[in-house]
């Protein structure tokens, strides 16, 4: 038991680093995911995750597998795609989801081509699926910094974000903070996706952001509780995924996301708030 569940983390530094990375990712990403879900933007996270690839890839092309250029490139590309998609939606007849889909597909194709121009298939594999078992100090510090910034920003923007989601008309009538807070929120999405990109790669960067948030929807009844549950689910899937990966020798990034998926499936069936069992096999009802 000890050998399977705790031993690997005591014995190997890379396992401890990976766990710390997963915790940092969950702390920042999961609450952001809760808001994405509540604003019906769940798929937008996925699209944005692909959109950061060409920027990160350009950084890689010029400087190799280096943290700073790939991070800066990723953030720049993420913002560029988010902004362009928003502008196209505003000034043409296309809706935002359509223009976002167009831009992220272009980005993904461009990114893969840029990576393969210089690198080997190993590098491409690493860009697409991340390297959670090879997090060095600067990367860990970056992940921790991003989750710190995210938590502080969410604390400051909590009220307008909630109100803009539940009753945007009312927010407009009392304050002008709706549009700026939405922009800052998009910035947080991009930052957390870049963090996810370093650990889990392009294709799974949103895994620890969306799956815990969506699973939490079956358990919590208000936004604050949802965010807390989502963070817990994220950390739990990080730990379980690493244990699975160590014992079964499966790739670690996909294992983590798969564990988050298992938590989601369990929530879907047993979750007390709208889960399948409580809905279709209800407990005996009360008198009033």
């Amino acid at each position, binding site marked *: 038991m000890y050998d399977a569940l705790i031993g690997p983390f005591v014995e190997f530094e890379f396992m401890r680093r990976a766990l710390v990375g997963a915790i940092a990712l969950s702390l920042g990403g999961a609450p952001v995911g809760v808001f994405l879900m509540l604003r019906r933007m769940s798929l937008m996270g996925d699209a944005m995750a692909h959109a950061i690839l060409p920027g990160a890839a350009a950084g890689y092309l010029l400087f190799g597998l280096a943290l700073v250029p790939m991070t800066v490139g990723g953030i720049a590309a993420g913002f560029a795609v988010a902004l362009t998609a928003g502008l196209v939606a505003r000034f043409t007849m296309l809706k935002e989801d359509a223009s976002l889909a167009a831009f992220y597909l272009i980005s993904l194709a461009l990114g893969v081509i840029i990576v393969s121009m210089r690198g080997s298939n190993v590098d491409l594999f690493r860009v697409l699926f991340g390297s959670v078992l090879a997090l060095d100090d600067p990367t860990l510090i970056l992940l921790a910094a991003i989750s710190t910034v995210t938590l502080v920003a969410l604390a400051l923007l909590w009220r307008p974000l909630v109100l803009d989601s539940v009753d945007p008309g009312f927010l407009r009538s*009392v304050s002008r903070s709706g549009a700026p807070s939405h922009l800052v929120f998009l910035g947080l999405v991009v930052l957390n996706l870049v963090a996810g990109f370093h650990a889990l790669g392009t294709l799974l960067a949103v895994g620890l952001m969306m799956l815990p948030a969506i699973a939490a929807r079956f358990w919590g*009844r208000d936004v604050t509780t949802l965010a807390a549950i989502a963070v817990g689910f994220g950390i739990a899937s990080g730990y379980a995924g690493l244990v699975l990966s160590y014992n079964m020798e499966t790739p670690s990034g996909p294992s983590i996301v798969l564990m988050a998926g298992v938590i989601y499936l369990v929530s879907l069936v047993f979750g007390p708030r709208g889960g399948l069992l409580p809905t279709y096999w209800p407990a005996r009802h009360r008198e009033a």
Partner: protein
Amino acid sequence: MSAVTIRDLTLGYDRHPAVHHLDGRIEAGAMLAVVGPNGAGKSTLLKGLAGAISPLSGAVEMTRSDRHAIAYLPQAAEIDRSFPITVFELVAMGMWRRTGLFGGLSRADRQGIEQALAAVGLTGFEGRTIGTLSGGQLQRMLFARLLVQDARLILLDEPFTAIDAKTCADLLDLVRRWNAEKRTVVAVLHDMETVRQAFPQSLLLARRAIAWGPTDEVLTPENLLAARRMTEAFDDHAGICAEAA
């Protein structure tokens, strides 16, 4: 205090006027009903007063401090009822002007929210999520938020539609109490009985003002007939209004 002057106000969409060259004054502490047929521009007028849309021409004049003391209940509040938020938290949003982005709720604020919920008969609903409320309960909750907003000018767009008689009477009492506290109330209403009973002043609107004044002088059969003759559709080929120049 909150007097609103409306000066040659035209409001509309895509250059088509929905409210056309309206002039008038809403005195501080007035209780004004806005009535008229569908498409007469009643909701548009309220949006204009609330500052949610800007005029095509003309102006709504009020002091700056009044402009920040408006509470507006739209006809179809854009509320996402599936959003996980409790009744207490939603009503607490009415405190926005005092708490701003970060300010916390004082004990007095919390009591104020409890009192507002009690006033609309929703005591005991504090912890319920808004998705579990019925239509009438939701409307009561929105009135509680209006109470908490403590505004000087209160704009209500068809506040009693699809509400049972008991709830309607309760909410109307609240509106009367606001007026007794010298707040200005402007309400879009369809039920002429309610208007005659509770609103001393009326504006009969059919894009232009048909009549504006004491309710019994406004709601005459001739005026109502004149309002009904308004054509609803916009004319895509209409020329430029001569008065607009």
